[in-house]
């Protein structure tokens, strides 16, 4: 109910729309360049370009609509999550309900992923259409207090609409990478051959320039997408940790949950590049080195230290950190 949460929520609303426009603009430029290159030498380059632009924008719009209405189902299905009711896992269901009440949002759907690696994520387009998923490993390793901390973290992603933005990031960034990959292949397979039997030299130069521009953009957009996906989710994790404590009023639950998550080094099976940023701890690489440019999650030690700042406890000393890593 704090001012920060409302401003987070409206920032996510705004950023979601902005992201869609940026991605569609990217697709439009890409489409045009690809169409122009395909049509090169026919005398109708611009018509080719505009046709491909229309197709690319169409694909972008369909993707945006699809990720808004069905992205959560796609994420849950690709993670092999199954929905549960209050009978199958009463404690989990109850803790989710408690955190939903604390956050003042409707009860999300609850999913379980059969995997011994402890982890959790939330997804959906808004709090009315949201889901939280936890692994069986998490249920086995956490006590009630720690479970509350983890689900408080997930519930704050739901409440401030992080779930919507990250859903768009996953699907849209995935689509850019796909398109860039396609474009690169096209350039290497056909571009070279076409340039070889070119009839007039000046036009060939233009085609090469266009291809180069396209190539550079493809590479740039790929890195840009990856950077947005990662930089954006790191700040989100710190915020969700803080909001979790605001909800549970118990920093120690989440702190000890994070320590347990750090100590566990088993990788999660059903995860890919488009879903890794959704989880509470990075499911691919646990406890990576520093806060590098390409990590989707801040190092757990940093997260624990930020929680300790809230309680006034001393930050982790080297011995504690070694112990944390030694547990791996």
């Amino acid at each position, binding site marked *: *109910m704090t001012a920060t949460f409302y401003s987070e929520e409206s920032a996510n609303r705004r950023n979601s729309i902005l992201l869609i426009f940026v991605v569609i603009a990217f697709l439009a430029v890409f489409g045009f360049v690809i169409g122009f290159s395909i049509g090169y030498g026919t005398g109708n380059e611009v018509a080719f370009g505009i046709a491909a632009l229309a197709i690319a924008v169409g694909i972008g719009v369909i993707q945006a609509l699809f990720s808004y209405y069905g992205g959560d189902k796609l994420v849950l299905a690709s993670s092999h999550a199954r929905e549960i009711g209050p009978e199958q896992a009463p404690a989990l269901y*109850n803790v989710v309900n408690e955190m939903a*009440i*604390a956050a003042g949002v409707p009860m999300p759907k609850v999913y379980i992923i059969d995997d011994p690696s402890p982890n959790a994520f939330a997804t959906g387009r808004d709090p009315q259409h949201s889901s939280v998923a936890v692994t069986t490993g998490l249920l086995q390793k956490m006590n009630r207090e720690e479970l509350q901390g983890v689900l408080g973290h997930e519930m704050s992603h739901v409440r401030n609409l992080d779930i919507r933005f990250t859903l768009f990031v996953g699907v849209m960034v995935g689509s850019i990478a796909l398109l860039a990959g396609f474009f690169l292949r096209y350039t290497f397979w056909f571009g070279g051959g076409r340039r070889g039997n070119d009839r007039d030299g000046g036009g060939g130069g233009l085609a090469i320039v266009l291809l180069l521009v396209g190539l550079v953009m493809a590479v740039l957009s790929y890195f840009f997408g990856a950077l947005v996906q990662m930089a954006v989710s790191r700040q989100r994790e710190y915020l969700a940790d803080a909001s979790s404590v605001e*909800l549970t009023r118990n920093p120690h639950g989440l702190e000890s949950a994070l320590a347990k998550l750090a100590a566990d080094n088993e990788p999660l099976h059903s995860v890919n590049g488009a879903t890794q940023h959704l989880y509470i701890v990075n499911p691919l690489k646990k406890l990576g080195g520093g806060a590098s440019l390409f990590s989707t999650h801040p190092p757990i030690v940093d997260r624990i230290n930020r929680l300790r700042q809230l309680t006034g406890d001393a930050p982790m000393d080297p011995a504690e950190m070694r112990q944390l890593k030694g547990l791996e």
Partner: protein
Amino acid sequence: MLPAIIILVVVVVVILFIVGIYNGLVTRRNRVDEGNAQIQVQLKRRHDLIPNLVNAVKGYMDFEKSVLVTVTEARGNAISAGSQGIAAQAQAENALTGALKSLFAVVENYPQLKANENVLSLQEQLTTTENQISFARQHYNATVLDFNNSLQTFPNVLIAGPFGFTKREFFEAEPEAAEVPVVNLG
């Protein structure tokens, strides 16, 4: 003609301004009511669960009937306090929370009870209900704080009085230290 237009524009702007503030206050007041409704749902659920728990443990607890009597009485008081305003209700419900804590502390002394599926399930249900009550109260109090603040700040304060918006009461938490359950191990 021009002054008339200027006056008209000013009046329209002022009216829009008042409408904006009024709607903001109504939204906040609805959040408070929603928060209160949430607490009432959880309290009702606790009232409904208690007779089941009392029945389930009654047979085992021959020596400590007084704990059960206290819980049953506290439940009765809490239900009747429901119509006496937030402050009275909060006090009666806190007494019930204390009585339940004593009961759970006593249950710890009976291994047969701790092994009983039915009691365990009721215990989980009551644990989550207790948590839900305290989280619902936390959320409600946050909405009340937000609403009361918005009533007292300028320019809302000019609108709030004439339109009949009044401050809401907090649902006070029990003072933790004051009610450590006394358990008779005799």
